[in-house]
């Protein structure tokens, strides 16, 4: 198999996989925080909170967006 060229290929429904990765991060975050121990600095604490929040927001946002799109498609 030889891969095609340098043209940008159209990714296949990556939003589902981005959502999946976000949920994975939400699930893994508590475990990894427990392994690494509490944050040792304020900026690390801020980063941990931000990462968890963004992952959760991304997961929920993408899930809700998907539900709305499905409903709109059914209505159409």
């Amino acid at each position, binding site marked *: 198999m*030889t891969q095609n060229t340098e043209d940008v290929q159209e990714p296949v429904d990556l939003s589902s996989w981005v959502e999946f990765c976000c949920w994975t991060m939400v699930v893994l975050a508590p475990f990894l925080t427990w392994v690494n121990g509490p944050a*040792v600095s304020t900026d690390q604490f801020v980063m941990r909170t931000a990462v968890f929040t963004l992952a959760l927001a991304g997961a929920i946002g993408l899930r809700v967006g998907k539900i709305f799109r499905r409903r709109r498609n059914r209505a159409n």
Partner: protein
Amino acid sequence: MPTRRDDPMDSNKAHAFLPRLAVAGILALHASLLAYIAATTAPVFDEPAHLVSGLSHWEFGNLDLYRVNPPPLRMIASLPVYLFADYEMDWKDVRDDPYVRSEFKAGRVFLRKNGERSFRYLMLSRMMLIPVSCLGAWVCFLWSRQLYGVSAGFVSLLLWCFSPNILAWGATIIPDLSAAAFGVMAVYTFWRWLREPTWKRAVYAGLTLGVAQLAKTTWIILFALFPIIWFMWRSPRQHGHSLAPPAKQFAAMPLLAICVLNTGYAFEHSFRRLDDFVFISTTLAGDNVATEGGNRFSGTLLGQLPVPFPSNYVRGIDVQKHDFETPSWSYLRGEQKRGGWWYYYLYGLLVKTPLGTLALLVLAFILLASATTYRQPWRDELVLLLPVVAVLVLVSSQTAFSRNYRYVLPLLPFLFIHASRLGRAFEIDGLPVRLASGVFLAASVISSLLVFPHSLSYFNCAVGGPIGGKYHLLDANIDWGQDLLKLKRWIDGNPEANPIGVAYFGIATPALAGIDATAVPYGPGFEYEGDDPGPQPGWYAVSVNHLMGYRHYDIDRPKYVYLQRFEPVATIGYSIYVYRITEADVAEYQALR
């Protein structure tokens, strides 16, 4: 009537634009993470030496200082300091003695002369090299995309941009990260020439090969590796590669690279006869090397040949070789000895790489062996994997000491690109691989970000994270002086911890950061006559290297390991532990002894 909204060309443009926007966004985020670390951490051990060496090149026009690494990167890093900063420096003790690495003393002098301003100068110089890391990420994306598709491109891009080791070293002016970026660029352009040999691509390959030499002398191995790869590509043709890479174009590459290398040194003393050099390493000077050095090529035919490399490049390799021939103290998994271990860097890869990334690599190897969908022709795979083997063999063979995991940074981008083949699963029907890839990639990213900005101290959770890492690796792998400024902030926020004793592992001093520190008492058996041995009541901040009894220098002794019996009240980054010892603690310690 179709509306503009229905125009498929607009839809195609949007689909082409979104990946580009995503790449730009990820690179911008990566640069921001690097800039944050660069702005908030103290100089690590070797950085002042790099900075002051760069300044000496600009000031005096000679390239002698820090000759073990080529000069251009530190010249770029030091340029804003040279042009705009009102720095002070006393050069009188700097001398060109082959056995003395004057750059480290010069670095200390620079810190002493400029005080707290040194931190700002270092921060400025660090910012200059952040684009190099972005370049490395971009090359990984391009190469992965060409091999395995655009999703694979994003996998390698994310692996680079969120790798804790890339973040740690990309935020310093230590050249190992730049070597990774320019090395992958050199091999990538060479690969592009192999696939479609044209003179234009040959010129790019030659130029980038030269630039890689100017990043770190490690890449001298490419002069041996490229002929091997080229020879393999010239064996019987297979579908997809219609042209054999021509010998003339191939021959032009090293010539171009040597021109670039010499240009990077301004052709300083290039083409000197080999027997004119005075070497200090046994490899180049001979077994009976005198204290003034020697040259094993004197009196030979080879010795009469002019060396097409700059003199300081050759002498730098000699000095580096001499360092690697001189046994030094090394630490691995609780054991300290003079000399290193051949498996040290493999072990470092296992404990300092996120488990998600390791899982991606293992899965990628399995698919490489078992599934043609995830595989390119063997020649393409060889170009990717041979540099990994070559760098690992090169660094692992130097067993006089084992201290710096960063020496294997140059092989990381090739591993990321190899792992990125799993991105194919997002473009074909491969649900199990997609699931696994998604989990492992997410795990890699979050594992790194949860330790940020203390990325230099990163260890994966198999060894207990950064807290457990000190039982496995020390020195620049966990504590290289990066948390001094954070210690200052902690002390300012905890005025009750005053006075505080500080045993700091780093090139700067606590006084430089505005810390009014006292000494930490030495442990029993190590105290000076007339002094009381530790533990003594008080507040103490101790670098983890000292806490573990690490011997960086010969004179170091495990003076502070007694503090391991106590629970720290705070951890500064993961490299400095703060203790509050009370009278009761001392009494309990004495009772147990």
